[in-house]
């Protein structure tokens, strides 16, 4: 392992340095009184220097030297009385000490250390972070940042859709409002805010939401999302005359293969019938049936998106043709065998009492 090889190298270098310092150099057996002499020589030189510099008068210098001499004699006699020193340390003792150090260090580290854990500097962790982080954690981080810098547009832009995702619509509303304040209103931002308000009101777009949607549609006449909501709201509130116009305008903006187009056409039909589901009208019923069959034929032959399959199943259910719905659902499951891919479809089908994968109920 890399760690242990470095650690052992460090230990070896340290131990070698100690061993070399203590055992490999020629040494004097026993320290002599030489250090003492040198010390007194320096002090004597200091006195002479002071005399030379005129800081000490002659008699003072003599007295100082005499005192120094007395001190030196006394210390020498003490040194003589000191017990004679033992023999110099043997090399074996040094070697034993050095080995003790190496053993102690490696042993203790083995107990205390975590050589298996790599360092994890924050900068090198984003991909791990992305994999492990759940939405709440990410939101908490961004919220902490926004508490300090409430003017951070990017932060609000990131956090607002996340709130929608977590169905925290009140927070989403606050975030979208902040975005409108900071970046100024445009069609998309106003529609986002309206969306948050509608979700809070359980789908009701009355009041401020509607104003915002209208403002967005005025700002950008080709803005599909706001027009879609306006038409839907008009239909919901029973203003069918205006609703028909709204749906027609919306459908007029379509290119022909948008996923929302079918819903828009249904809405138009519903509004045109004056709020009554148009099944009593045979021709209308036929027309819808024709459209549904056209879609079914296309999906059978060419395949399509999960959304289209879902639309087909929902259409059969609306037409109360359960068999066809079950058949379409089974075809969709065959086309998208991964349950992960068909979340919305399964919810719809199971909610309507269709069976999954033909395994019976």
């Amino acid at each position, binding site marked *: 392992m*890399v*760690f242990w090889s*470095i650690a052992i190298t*460090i*230990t070896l270098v*340290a131990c070698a340095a*100690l061993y070399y*310092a*203590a*055992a490999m150099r020629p*040494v*004097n057996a026993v*320290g002599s009184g030489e*250090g*003492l002499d*040198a*010390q007194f020589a*320096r*002090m004597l030189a*200091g*006195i002479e*220097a*002071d005399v030379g510099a005129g*800081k*000490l008068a002659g*008699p*003072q*210098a003599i*007295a*100082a030297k005499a005192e*120094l001499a007395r*001190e030196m004699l006394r210390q020498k006699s*003490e040194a003589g009385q*000191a017990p004679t*020193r*033992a*023999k*110099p*340390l043997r090399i074996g003792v*040094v070697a034993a*000490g050095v080995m*003790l*150090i*190496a053993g102690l*260090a490696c042993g*203790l*580290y083995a107990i*205390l*250390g*975590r*050589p298996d*854990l*790599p*360092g*994890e500097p*924050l900068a090198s*962790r984003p991909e791990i972070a992305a994999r*492990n982080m759940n939405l709440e954690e990410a939101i908490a*981080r961004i919220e902490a940042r926004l508490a*300090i810098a409430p003017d951070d547009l990017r932060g609000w832009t990131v956090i607002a859709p996340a709130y929608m995702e977590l169905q925290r619509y009140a927070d989403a509303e606050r975030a979208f409002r902040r975005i409108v304040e900071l970046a100024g209103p445009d069609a998309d931002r106003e529609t986002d805010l309206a969306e948050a308000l509608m979700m809070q009101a359980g789908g009701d777009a009355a009041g401020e939401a509607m104003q915002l949607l209208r403002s967005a549609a005025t700002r950008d006449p080709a803005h599909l999302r706001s027009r879609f909501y306006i038409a839907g709201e008009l239909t919901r509130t029973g203003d069918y005359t205006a609703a028909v116009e709204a749906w027609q305008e919306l459908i007029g903006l379509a290119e022909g293969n948008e996923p929302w187009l079918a819903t828009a056409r249904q809405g138009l039909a519903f509004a045109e019938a004056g709020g009554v589901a148009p099944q009593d009208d045979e021709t209308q019923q036929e027309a819808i049936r024709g459209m549904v069959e056209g879609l079914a034929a296309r999906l059978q032959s060419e395949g399509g998106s999960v959304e289209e399959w879902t639309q087909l199943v929902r259409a059969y259910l609306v037409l109360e043709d359960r068999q066809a719905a079950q058949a379409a659902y089974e075809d969709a499951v065959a086309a998208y065998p991964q349950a992960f891919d068909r979340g919305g479809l399964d919810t719809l089908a199971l909610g309507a009492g269709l069976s999954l994968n033909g395994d019976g109920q």
Partner: protein
Amino acid sequence: MTIELGHFALILAFAIASVSTLGGYLFWRRGERVALFLQQGAVLQFVLVAAAFAALIQAFVVSDFSLALAANNSHSLKPLVFKISGVWGNHEGSMVLWVLILVAFGAMVAAFGKNLPQSLLSLVLATQSLLTAAFSGFTLFTSNPFERVSPAPLEGADLNPVLQDIGLAIHPPLLYTGYVGFSVCFSFAVAALVSGRIDAAWARWVRPWTTLAWLFLTLGIAMGSYWAYYELGWGGWWFWDPVENASFMPWLAGTALLHSAIVMEKRNALKIWTIFLAIITFSLSLLGTFMVRSGILTSVHTFASDPTRGLVILSILAVLIGGAFALFALRAPALRAGGLFAPVSREGALILNNLFLATALGAVLVGTLYPLLLDALAGMTISVGAPFFNLTFSILMAPLLVVLPFGPLLAWKRADIVAVAQRLIAAGALAIFLAALISALGGVSVSMAPIGLLLGFWVAFGALAELIERSRLGRLPLIESARRLAGLPRSAWATALGHFGLGVTVLGIVATTAWESELVTTLNPGEAARLAGYTIAFERFEEVPGPNYSAERGTFRVTGESDATRILSPERRIYAASGMPTTEAAIETYGFSQLYLQLGEPVDGTHVVRAWFKPYVTLIWIGALLMALAGAVSLTDRRLRIGAPARRAAATEPVR
């Protein structure tokens, strides 16, 4: 992997320190080989602990939250300088800093100590290694800074906002250098006691180490005081908080040691007392560092305490301090006392200094520990507050300040007090004149202020009197005096500078205590208030984002009577990670005085604003800086000489 290598380095340093201790005490008589081993060991300990410390800094800088210490005390949004200082803004990291400074001093002894007798060097290094082993062991086994977390959290808990200040980068390293520097004096004292000999080299070595440690301790305390002054938001510069006392006690003991070491170096006297002081000083340093961590004392400085840790700390302190004093009791009688001197002499004055400092130290110690003991023994809770300390401390310090200017003018061995008094007449007269003048002009209402001023001026001018005396200013031609002044030994300059600095600090304390004015009012933007001749106009209030906090900032335009306007911007901050608020006072310096402005909480749509005018408050810290500078000057004076006794005709009987 750097974290784990740092961990390994600290463990290896602990192993080397342990073996060095063992080998040093067992084999110190056995010649050069032991000394060489210990010298190399001391250098290696330093290199290894430095590497460990660098690994911690690295982990904090790159926000590696797999290190528990970083996860608990850092935050990825913190500015770089606070990421680094955050390493020692907590118990574990500060222990590593403490040990790092300890081994740095050990390495310095090893590097500069080549001329020391081998047995002395071995014992000193063995004692340093003992301290290193004890405290690095404590760090590793009870408060390991290298503990890991797995899986690593994504964000740290952030550092206490009060500590997110440049003060944390400066104050602890200075203070610890001061504390730990005294370990060298302690090791020398223990070595002398173990070997039973105090040789000339010992006497020569203790003073520079004491001076070095004292210098840093002075700076550390002054810096801590200034930090508390501007960060805690109350404008106080000393609180008699237990931890402040804990840093002040080693300073008092260290100051006494500094002076007794002079006597020992110059006159070979007071050896046993110096050894005693060296042990006391370092013991108090240990208390200062660790009493807070043991959990018996609580204050602003308290780190999270834990009972096991406290018990271990107390045992280590008991063994080290108790062991040193036991050794002292056993071996001190065997030591030779040294030189003789008369009561009135430089030595006598220095002993007087030691007596006063020791008594003041005792008072602070009692004031700090008495409530604890009472609580532990009788279950009574009392609080010994600032009034007690202010009173006892000033009563004890006043006589010291009165006699202080005499000291440096006295001759060694025996001196003429009358002659010295004559030389100080001018300084005394000037001090009385200025104190009276200022009191008359300032309209003093506090009765003690003139006495305080008098003492401050007396000490400051008395210090200058020595320089004037020694340069024969006024009695010789000016050029000649200047030449003499320049030729004075550095130690004379250091003495004068140090004592002058003390006088300056006393003046600052007295002036700011007596003449401080305070204003607490509510203001809205557009309104203004007046304080001590300054008009404080509240211009605007705004919210400003910081890197890891949000701030409310008030902008004030302050106009003095004869001064250009200046803009002051106090803030209130809320730190995101902890939600803790701090106040950032705005301080503006006018000459030596300061205007201190603090923005309080908004109340009913208006803002509470506190303002203080603190006359001459900066003198407190300028004086401390001068004292530290004096220590530095003294360190550059490398003369190795004994004092020259003056021979006098009238011989008095020498008294011990």
